[in-house]
């Protein structure tokens, strides 16, 4: 594995096969999800667990489900999970062309009056979260909106921040950060590669 000047490669779990450019392995991802789940519990316990988790496709959706699972096992509370596709609200469709739409699934009980926690894999420019805030408008009126991300890689282009951050990864803009999740990619990992960002990652 080649080392990166900015972020040293992390050790993987005992059984995991490491992926090229890997900075977080399976065990790291699991630990981070656990920690965010605890933070959410602390935060929303105050308002009687009126929260819902809304995953942003693609990888925000399995992350939202994992968080709900962990919250259920730590606090014994079931938090509704949904998904929120933001493709139609993106500001770069004309720049980068159309792409397939993801699914929007309203969580049980809707979002009106709830604390909506948007869940995404990588926070980068902040444009995905902005698009998600617009998309939320069409679904209802939450009491509050928060954001949870597995990785914050910096380089914000909008005044947006996350309430729950799994890992801050200082990167340069010519690096590509990818989150791999077992549900989609067969394995859990976060990778950084040098060079031009990959198509799958540019919009993160």
């Amino acid at each position, binding site marked *: 594995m080649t080392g990166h000047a900015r972020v040293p490669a992390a050790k993987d779990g005992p059984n995991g096969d490491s992926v090229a450019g890997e900075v977080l392995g399976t065990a790291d991802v699991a630990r981070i999800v656990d920690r965010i789940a605890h933070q959410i519990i602390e935060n929303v316990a105050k308002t009687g667990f009126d929260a819902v988790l809304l995953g942003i496709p693609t990888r925000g959706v399995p992350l939202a489900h994992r968080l709900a699972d962990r919250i259920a096992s730590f606090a014994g509370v079931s938090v509704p999970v949904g998904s929120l596709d933001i493709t139609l609200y993106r500001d770069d*469709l*004309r720049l980068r*062309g*159309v792409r397939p739409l993801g699914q*929007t699934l309203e969580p049980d009980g809707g979002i009106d009056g709830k604390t909506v926690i948007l869940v995404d894999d990588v926070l980068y420019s902040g444009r995905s979260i902005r698009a998600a805030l617009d998309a939320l408008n*069409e679904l209802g009126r939450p009491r509050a909106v928060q954001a949870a991300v597995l990785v914050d890689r910096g380089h914000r282009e909008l005044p947006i921040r996350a309430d729950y951050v799994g890992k801050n990864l200082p990167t340069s803009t010519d690096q590509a950060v990818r989150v791999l999740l077992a549900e989609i990619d067969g394995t859990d990992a976060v990778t950084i590669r040098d060079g031009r960002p990959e198509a799958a990652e540019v919009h993160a």
Partner: protein
Amino acid sequence: MRHLLSAADLDRDEALAVLDTAARMHDIQHRQSKKLPPLRGRTVVNLFFEDSTRTRSSFEIAGKWLSADVVNVSAKGSSVSKGESLRDTVLTVAAMGVDALVVRHHQSGAVQRIAEWVDCHVVNAGDGTHEHPTQALLDAYTLRSRLGALDDRHVVIVGDITHSRVARSNVLLLTTLGARVTLVAPPTLMPSGVAGWDCATSWDLDAVLSGKAHGDVDAVMMLRVQSERMSGGYFATTREYATGYGLSPARLDLLGESVPVLHPGPMNRGLEISTAAADGPRSAVLDQVQAGVAVRMAVLFRLLAGPDATAEVPA
């Protein structure tokens, strides 16, 4: 994709992308607020040289739900009736800064010609007896939601094939999606060039529906008998047509319980389709209408939401 002029413009990947996008658009139809932003600031003109209710209104609704500005121009009362040429009319409308023209014309090939004259996107909403690609897409969408993937499915299309733009577009699209098609019509309503189409043909509806002629049937599409054909000598009487080619209750019994029955509308009940078939559990007619808006949203989205037409490399 620059234009949608023919169902043949869609390769398998693009066709599936449109249908998958339509499925997501369909979800939105059940929301309280149906307004979506991706075509904000874009202008779509529905240019209809031939009467249409459902196609025009579903394109209009589709454009509006995607936040495009939609303008309807019908030939009646327009400069067309004052003797302006088709080219002048089209160039005049296009010069107003239009991003897409949705065109229906009574002459086959007119929409293809129009696409050569203008810089904007052009969608064929039906040209003469030639093509109606968005109808084929909504039929495929309806079939997919009833049957799943269309690979190796057997679709039977019955009626006036000669004058049907729906049949031609459906044969093209359904075969692209892996289905096989059998066309059934009386000899007078089977086009002379049908041997070159990628499908089977038959004059015997009962043999086809029972599965004896071309194998088990997965779906049936009945075409409208257009009133202007009834006096054209294509068949002796409407009763004779109904007897030979109408989907009667007896013929309905030849079909499996889950075989969907489609009709592009408007239906002539008692002629090409019986009330038992039109309103029974197999009928997918209302699904088709619902799918029409979702499919047209998907087409407009995929044509218009990306980079400008002039900047795009033609597919």
